[in-house]
Each structure stands twice: as structure tokens, then as C-alpha cells.
């Protein structure tokens, strides 16, 4: 009985931690969609680049913290290049082309990663001070995972506040609804677009480094996480930040509990959940519902 309770508790904590980190990936995806109307298939690749750069920086300089700082910024630079040289040429066309373009980029990144880092899975060395475990009730829980949970939660809360309160957030929401109006205010919408794309990518890059030290870094991680992120934002409602956060927690918990019940078919729970949500609410939990 006690053993069961502790494994459920452990799964719950794991699920919340995984959910908050996935929220970092999904938040970028949903913000980019909300603003640019772009389904970014390369978002998982940006996350993966974050992980791999994290590996390299951490092993070169022996500092996890440096990796956590530099790798996401480098991901931002890659993202800027993708937005400026790729997506910008496609705005105004059928949004389908965005999917196809970013899918092409994802294939390229996949190939590049294998070319540079090889096919085997790597790991970022977590810092000494975050090693070891702590006891939470009956559960021995790794300190590093608590750290991941804390930092993800802080970041998500900060982004939430920013979108909700700051001028920048208001500007972002305004350009999502009416780019012409923002244009008329004398603000360069294309810079806002680039900014949001880069910002979303940096969040994904941070998640890549964080999870690179708890899961592992491998060439399949980009395509793996993008499916999880899609499930999250579709459940939450495309373009909704709140939806992405709740969706991520849901997916994190289902993944963690699913691993307790039937580890080999956890994904089926996720997809079935998404299918059910969409059948009941075709635009997701927090998606814009059709008004009059």
C-alpha cells in the first residue's frame, strides 16, 4: 500500500515537472502560432539544437550554467535566421506552406545533428550542487528534477505575467489580432514577428538544455517532442498560452501515470485524450470558439 502510494506520488511529481518543462516548448509553439499563424514544425528541432549545444558547451567549458545561458541564445540566432530567410518570404500565402517549410527545415536539422554530433545519445552533466536526492515523504526525489521544476515554473510564470501585463504583451496580442492596426501605430510588425519567433525558440532552447541533463540528447528528440508539443497545443487550443500550460501539465501527468499503468502504450493515452478533447471541443480547451 505504502509502495503504491509512493509510486503514485513520485509519478505525480514527475508529471508536473515534465509538464512544466514541456510547457516551455509548447508556449513557444502556441505564441508563434497566435502571432504569426505559423505551425512551426521546426520547433522541436530548435529544442534539439538547444540540447546539443548544451552538451557541447557543458563539456567544453565544464559548466552547466554557461550551457544554460549560451545555448538558448544560440538557438535564438538560428531561429532568427529561419524567420527572416525562410518564413518571411511566405507570409500572406496559404499557412500550409509554413508547415511544409518548417518541416523541411526540421529534416535538415535532423541530418545536420547526426552529421555533427553522431547518432548516439548524449547527456549533459548536471552540476555537482544539484546532484543527489531529497526525501519528500516516502519518495527519494532527485534534486536536479526539483531544480528543473522550479526554473520552468518561474519562467512560465514570468512569460504569463509578461503577456498579461506588459506593454510588450499587449503589443503582441494586438498584432496577433490586427497587424494593420499595429502597422498604423508605426510599429514594425515584421520586427515583432521576428522577436516572437526568437523568443519562442529561446524558451524551447532552455527546455532542451534542462531536459538534456535529465532525459538525454539524441537525434530523435526533435521529432519526438514536436509531437508531444502538438498534442499539448491542440488540446489547449492553438494560440492560447493558458491552454498550452494546462495542456502541458495534462500531458506530463498522463505520461507519468501512463508509465505506471502500461509503459509501452503511453502514447495511445495521449492521442486518445487529444482525440476526445477535439471531438468535444473542436478548437481545443481554450481555443477561440466561433462567435456569431
Amino acid at each position: 500500500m505504502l509502495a503504491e502510494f509512493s509510486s503514485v506520488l513520485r509519478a505525480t511529481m514527475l508529471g508536473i515537472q515534465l509538464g512544466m518543462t514541456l510547457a516551455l516548448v509548447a508556449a513557444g509553439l502556441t505564441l508563434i502560432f497566435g502571432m504569426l499563424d505559423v505551425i512551426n514544425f521546426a520547433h522541436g528541432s530548435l529544442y534539439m539544437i538547444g540540447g546539443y549545444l548544451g552538451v557541447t558547451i557543458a563539456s567544453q567549458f565544464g559548466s552547466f550554467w554557461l550551457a544554460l545561458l549560451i545555448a538558448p541564445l544560440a538557438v535564438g540566432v538560428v531561429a532568427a535566421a529561419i524567420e527572416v530567410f525562410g518564413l518571411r518570404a511566405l507570409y500572406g500565402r496559404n499557412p500550409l506552406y509554413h508547415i511544409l517549410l518548417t518541416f523541411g527545415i526540421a529534416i535538415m536539422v535532423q541530418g545536420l545533428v547526426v552529421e555533427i554530433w553522431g547518432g548516439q545519445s548524449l547527456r549533459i552533466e548536471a552540476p555537482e550542487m544539484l546532484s543527489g536526492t531529497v526525501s519528500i515523504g516516502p519518495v527519494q526525489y532527485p534534486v536536479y528534477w526539483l531544480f528543473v521544476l522550479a526554473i520552468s515554473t518561474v519562467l512560465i510564470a514570468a512569460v504569463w505575467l509578461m503577456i498579461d501585463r506588459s506593454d510588450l504583451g499587449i503589443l503582441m496580442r494586438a498584432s496577433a489580432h490586427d497587424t494593420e492596426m499595429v502597422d498604423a501605430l508605426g510599429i514594425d510588425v515584421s520586427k515583432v514577428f521576428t522577436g516572437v519567433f526568437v523568443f519562442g525558440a529561446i524558451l524551447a532552447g532552455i527546455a532542451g538544455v534542462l531536459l538534456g541533463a535529465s532525459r538525454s540528447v539524441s537525434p530523435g528528440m526533435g521529432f519526438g517532442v514536436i509531437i508531444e508539443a502538438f498534442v499539448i497545443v491542440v488540446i489547449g487550443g492553438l494560440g492560447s498560452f493558458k491552454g498550452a500550460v494546462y495542456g502541458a501539465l495534462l500531458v506530463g501527468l498522463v505520461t507519468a501515470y501512463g508509465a505506471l499503468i502500461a509503459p509501452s502504450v503511453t502514447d495511445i493515452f495521449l492521442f486518445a485524450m487529444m482525440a476526445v478533447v477535439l471531438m468535444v471541443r473542436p478548437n481545443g480547451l481554450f481555443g477561440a470558439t466561433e462567435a456569431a
Partner: protein
Amino acid sequence: MGLLDAFDPREASPTTDGILTNRGRFGVLALIAALAVLGPIAASVRPFWLYLLVQILAFALLALSLDFVFGYAGLLSFGHAAMFGAGGYAVALLVTHVTPNALVVLPAAVLTGVVVAAFIGWFSVRARGIYFAMLTLAFAQIFYVAAFADLPASLLGVETVTGGDNGLVGLAALEAFGVVDLSSRLNYYFLTLALVALSLLAIVRIANSPFGRVLQGVRENEDRMAFIGYDVERYKVIGFAISGGFAGLAGGLYVPFQSLAQPQLLHWTLSGELVVMLLLGGLGTLWGPMLGAGVVILLEEQLSGFTAWEVILGAVFVVVVVFAPQGLAGVLVSLRDDPKDTLGKVRDALANYREKVLK
């Protein structure tokens, strides 16, 4: 009704112009004839080419099936691998447990594709656009996981059904009542070529039917279709199921030739690659995506020597999306209509790109 009537020269719709003209149907016939001649040559010079050709034909059929719903009805399916793989697994299971008779297993592959597509379609058509794409992807992944984890075996309480991540290997060759020996690669190639040609004919025919016109209307404006009296969801499900039948056939042709059915056939990355083939070839033209399938498979084959072949493939794809959204079909049509103007169009596209990027 002659075979050629399907490629109707009366065709005048701007969206279906191209292959369906007189010139186009002769082009297709010439290509089929050329492929028929190429088979025996390949068999005697380099048997490996036959292997490639069958692979190309199977994927051309799969691309054709997707273009029928995507290009015609505007339904972006990111789950066509489900029907492809289901058709393939159906054949593999029948060959292993029941019979290798092609006249039994291939119709079964079609039927499996129809049933799987009707199931996925029925649940998905209420959602639109990107949500539809994601739902089809989700359902297809359920099939993938089910095959990978061999869920049917756990449910039935037997040792193995799908063979898990190894798949079903060492399948016996197909035959047809002992009359035709389909273990001969050349014979199998001819069978595949004939079925792909017939499928193209059938799909062109359906595209030109009253039903096909309705699908076109649905793509253009599904709301309005409902307000002039069409049961749009029903049309979409049926269109999706028809497409699934052809996708199932493609899987059913692919698997026996490989002598292997593996979960990878059901994975979403295959669906994604398929969408790449469509766009590269030219969406909505039917022949373009078939061409795109051929080009992608040849590229993969040629580039597989390089470790970074995915980089090149992805780059080719990115360039096509940005500079030639009409795909290879668009480029070819433009070359045919006005070769000189094509160079001008390239210049325009570059100038347009520079303006948009640097604005």
C-alpha cells in the same frame, strides 16, 4: 466506355488543367509504356533498379491517394501512413496465416485501407484545417503504437500478431492461383505498374465525376457547400475512405515486395515525407505528386551514400517551398507553355524573395 475516356479532353476547369488535356493523357500513356519497357531492361542490366522502380510505383500510388483528398478536397491528412501501413500489415498477416493469393490479399489491402480511413475520417472531419491534420496524425500514431507494442497480441492473449518492433519478416511471395509466379521480380513489377496505372485512371475518373466536383467545391468553400444542400461531412468521410483504399493498396503492394511489414510503415514521419512528395511534385495535379514520389525516392537513393543526405533533401524541399510553390508540375507546365518566360519567372521569384526578406 473506353479507357481513354477518363482523361477527358473536354476538361476545362482551371484547377484541373494540365494532365487531363489531350497532350497530358498521351504523356501519361507514353510514360506507362516507357516504364513497361524499362522493366525488362532493368531486370537484365541491374536487378536493383527493379527494386527501386517498385518502391517508386508504390509511393507514387500513395502520393496519388493523398493528393486526391488533399489536392481535391483540401483535407490535409497527416495520417496517410496509417492506411498505407494497415494495408501492408493486412497483406502480411494474410500471407502468413491464410493465403499468398494476390487476388485475395490485394483486395483485402484495399478494404483495410477503406475501413481504417473511414474510421479515422469519421472522427476527424468535424475538425478543420490544422486541427484536422493533427487529429489524423494522432489516430495514425495510435495505429503505430499499437503495432509497435503489439497491442493486438495482448488484447487477444496470443504470443504475437504484429511482431512488435521487428515487424513481420520473411513473408512468402504472392501468387495468383499458381498461374502467375509473382516471386519473379519482373512479374511483380508488371503487376504493380498495371495496378498503379489503373488506380490513376480510376482516381482521375472519380475526380471528374459529379462526386469529384463536390469535393472540389468543399475545398474551395465548405461552408457554402453546406448552404446549397450538400452534406459536407459525409462527402469528406467518403472521399477520405476512397483515398484510404488506394493508400491501402499501395501498402499492400509495397510489403510483399519488401517481404517485411514493420511499424515504421505507420509512423507519422512517413506521412510527413508523403506531404513533402506532394508539394515537391505539385499539389492538386495528381500526376505531380506521383512524380514527386519518384524524385524523393531517387534522391534518397542517390544521396544515401552521403551521411548528410537529409540535409540536402530538406534543403531541396525548402527551396521548392519558397521559390516554386507549384512544385515540379508547375515548373514543367511553365517550361512547356513558354520556355523563355520561365527564366523570367525565376528572376521574378528571386526579386520577390529579396524584397520580402529585406523589407
